[in-house]
């Protein structure tokens, strides 16, 4: 089947391909500079600002937005919402790609990437939240790979291996949810060690819980968001089931996201009360905090609700974009904007253009990989030979 589907006779010189090619070229040049000149050659990192865009965006945002995989498979397999089934595979694919890219991007950020396995094979730093994150991300990437592997196995026609993977679905799903709970929350917990550097409005002993809950929001919203994009660009790759179920998925996930956003808003307020941070709300930081909480938590919560009540898919799809932006904003606020808030502006960090270029490069690699996979493998449609088995 793949042969017939790949026979898309399109010129290689589409505007998209040209832009992507340029980005890749620039990315490769910067890659060479990074690994020959050191971090200093391509970044604005400093002794005051050891973590920049590559952690704030590539790691924190990347992992949060890849949460769709565990959220969807949990909804479908654990909570038994079978009508979301067609959303599982695309979500797991994006999850897998997302995590793979996070790990890929980390190789740029850490000083000696070839030592990344050291915490697990040489000397575990068990008191570090980063160790926890690393262990879970590594394990979860493996889990996602196995879960996702049913698609390439179908593509390649390895029936036995594929059936084994499908048999393991339940165990993998539960393991995936456990690991996701842990590392999503631990990413927030990374900042627990630095109460003196993160602005009190963002620092909270609830940080791990905030990160976990908001990762659910990110996961749900990303599934809606991606499916609307996929609809626009890969419509021909979808089977009937997928097309039919997408609207249901958007409605169901929109409802869930609205509810979770509501809970998230509540615990944010509780966090303010617990640390007695009300008085900061009247400062400039407070205004920015309110922009985040009102504009990117409360507003999408309300808009999702409206969309769900009126069964208006357009509202839901647009809101998913807003909610995703909200998560991005939150992660960047914590890692870059409100971090080191106490330093004079001359010591603050702003990403070097080459850091931004590498982040764009990584995202582009992701989009290209996604495009390759959905045009070749049974992601948005069920493989004709395996229809029964789901």
């Amino acid at each position, binding site marked *: 089947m793949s042969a017939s589907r790949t026979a898309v006779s399109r010129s290689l010189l589409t505007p998209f391909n040209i832009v992507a090619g340029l980005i890749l070229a620039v990315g490769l040049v910067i890659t060479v500079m990074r*690994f*020959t*000149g*050191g*971090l*200093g*050659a391509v*970044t604005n*990192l*400093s*002794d*005051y600002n*050891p*973590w920049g865009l590559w952690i704030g965006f590539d790691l924190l945002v990347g992992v949060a937005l890849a949460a769709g995989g565990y959220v969807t498979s*949990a909804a479908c*397999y*654990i*909570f*038994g919402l079978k009508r979301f089934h067609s959303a599982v595979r695309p979500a797991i694919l994006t999850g897998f790609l997302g995590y793979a890219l996070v790990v890929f991007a980390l190789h740029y*950020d*850490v*000083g*000696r*990437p070839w*030592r*990344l396995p*050291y*915490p697990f094979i*040489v*000397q*575990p*730093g*068990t*008191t*570090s*939240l*980063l*160790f*926890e994150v690393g262990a879970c991300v590594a394990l979860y990437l493996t889990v996602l790979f196995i879960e996702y592997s049913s698609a390439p196995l179908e593509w390649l026609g390895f029936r036995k291996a594929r059936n084994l993977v499908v048999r393991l679905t*339940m165990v993998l799903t*539960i*393991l995936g*949810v*456990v690991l996701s*709970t*842990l590392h999503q*929350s*631990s990413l927030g*917990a*990374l*900042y*627990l*060690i*630095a*109460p*003196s*550097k993160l602005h009190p409005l963002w620092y909270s*002993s609830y940080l*791990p819980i905030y990160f976990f809950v908001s990762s659910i929001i990110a996961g749900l919203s990303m599934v809606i968001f991606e499916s609307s994009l996929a609809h626009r660009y890969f419509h021909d790759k979808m089977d009937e089931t997928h097309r039919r179920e997408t609207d249901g998925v958007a409605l169901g996930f929109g409802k869930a996201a609205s509810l979770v956003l509501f809970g998230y808003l509540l615990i944010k307020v509780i966090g303010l009360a617990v640390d007695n941070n009300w008085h900061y709300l009247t400062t400039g930081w407070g205004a920015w905090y309110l922009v985040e909480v009102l504009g990117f938590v409360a507003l999408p919560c309300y808009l999702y609700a409206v969309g769900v009540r009126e069964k208006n898919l357009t509202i839901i799809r647009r809101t998913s974009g807003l909610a995703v932006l909200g998560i991005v904003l939150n992660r960047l606020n914590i890692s870059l904007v409100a971090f080191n808030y*106490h330093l004079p502006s001359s010591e603050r960090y702003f990403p070097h253009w080459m850091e931004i270029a590498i982040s764009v490069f990584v995202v582009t690699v992701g989009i290209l990989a996604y495009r390759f996979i959905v045009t070749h493998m049974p992601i948005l449609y069920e493989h004709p030979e395996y229809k029964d088995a789901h």
Partner: protein
Amino acid sequence: MSISRRKFLGWMGAAGLGVTAGTKARAASNAHFEGYPNSLAVLHDTTRCVGCRRCEAGCNKVNDLPAPATPFDDLTVLDRKRRTDAESYTIVNRYGAGGEGQAPLFRKNQCNHCLEPACASACFVAAFHKTPEGAVVYDASVCVGCRYCMIACPFEIPTYEYDKALAPRVMKCTMCHPRVLEGKLPGCVEACPVEALSFGSREEMLKIARERIRKQPERYVDHIYGENEMGGTSWLYLAGVPFRELGMREDLGVTPAPKLTSGALGAVPIVVGLWPVLLTGIYAVSKRKDKIAEEEKRQAVAQAVEAADQKAAEAMAKAREKAEKEKTGAIDKAVKEALAEAERKAQEEAAKAAAEAAAPTDDTAEGPEGTTPPAPSDPKPTEEDA
């Protein structure tokens, strides 16, 4: 815990030690950790510091650091605030020199060698550790370069060799650990010409500091910075002005760094322990629900079918009766109609034949024969309504 023990503490090491060390630390969950007894510390009396930068020079020398851009006797560098960087473990800054007749204040900055180091707590390869001697030392041979230690350190001390491509290291003061093991003084302490730095056991340094405050209360603020900050440090400070005026943070609190993360770390195994149970439970329940729903559906269908069967039987009987009637009715009707038709046609034909008898040309025989149906038995009069 010695270096060697920690070094070999791999996964298996940790498992093996569970047997030996576990018993001794039985009551440790609510225990209070006092730090290593007789560990060493430096006391920096900022009221004595003259900002000569000799400590910087001494440190540079004993640690074989690269020569600085401006020589150590050039005091103009004091005009701007500096921080530790990859080529200097320690820095002296000038503070508060403004008012007329007011002597400028100086403070030396370097790693404070926390009793509970945030950098060690944060490092995911355990590259840092607190030695029994007091120094917090770093092991570049395992460092991955994630720089989380730099995020964690509340004193913003560790620095990174951002310009090295192949083997960048975290750089920070070592409290001259190798020298101290040899019985020598730290390089900076040795170099200080005015004894603004003293070195000895931490207890002793605290005693000296208290003594100085007691003897000259007008000279010192009544606080020893580092006694409790972030759980206490092995570098202690005395000052004549509030410490914030020396660029030191007074809002760090006294919570040791590992305590900040212990809650989150403690939740991890609980999630691992309970989540699978919870999730499998939810799975089983939703499965069960599905099954029950299915079962109920099946039963309902079965009942409905049964009931329907009975009704259907009755209905069928009726229907059959009715159908019978209808059928006969329909047949009768059809027969009647057919007869009427035949009759009509026969008459027509007869008339036609009679009319054409005068001029016999066409084949007239077929018509009446073909259309005349075989005469049925007696037509019964029946009702027509359905």
